[in-house]
């Protein structure tokens, strides 16, 4: 299975600012997935990032709020823009390789 390096692991940010989360994968993968996990909740898919094309966003998530970059087959970033306290969550990236889904270690974001 793939190994994912995700950073930062945690951050405390002021409202109105932006944070960019990075995920680096040790294998080339077509799709990278970004999830949000609000406190005490399950994982909700934000978007799917395919290299060479725009990300596909799930209902309730928009590019202006969560812009995603996918410059190559091993790397992706998710930016949380114009943050508010409601954005306080854990954000995880994930990849699928040979039917196995691997997750990054997560970014715990607190917005104050």
């Amino acid at each position, binding site marked *: *299975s793939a190994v994912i390096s995700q950073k930062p692991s945690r951050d405390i940010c002021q409202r109105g600012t932006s944070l960019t989360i990075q995920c680096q994968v040790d294998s080339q993968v077509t799709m990278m*997935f970004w999830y949000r996990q609000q406190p005490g*909740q*399950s994982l909700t898919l934000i978007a799917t990032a*395919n290299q060479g094309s725009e990300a596909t966003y799930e209902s309730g998530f928009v590019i202006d709020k969560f812009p995603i970059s996918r410059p190559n087959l091993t790397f992706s970033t998710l930016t949380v823009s114009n943050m508010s306290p409601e954005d306080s969550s854990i954000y*995880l990236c994930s990849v699928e390789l040979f039917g196995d*889904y691997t*997750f990054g270690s*997560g970014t*715990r974001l607190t917005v104050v």
Partner: protein
Amino acid sequence: ELKVEQNPLFLSMQEGKNYTIYCNYSTTSDRLYWYRQDPGKSLESLFVLLSNGAVKQEGRLMASLDTKARLSTLHITAAVHDLSATYFCAVPDMGGATNKLIFGTGTLLAVQP
């Protein structure tokens, strides 16, 4: 739209007891995944169930899949405190091009001594 439901949402059980967590999903899929999450941690893969009738066991946990009923179970045998965690099932959405993984609501398991 694929929906994945788990029950119960919360399970408090005594050490040594047995219990089952259920996972239902709404559209056809030939695979199902179980994950464990400890507080403040990422997801740990427990089982990948790849076909109808698949059964996998690891220690005190056993998972099964019935694709016709769109049901998976995670059975806990003789629970121990170390099993306390949140357990998620997840199903790939086979209706699109990405096989995105859709998660169940999660089951918070608390094993009491």
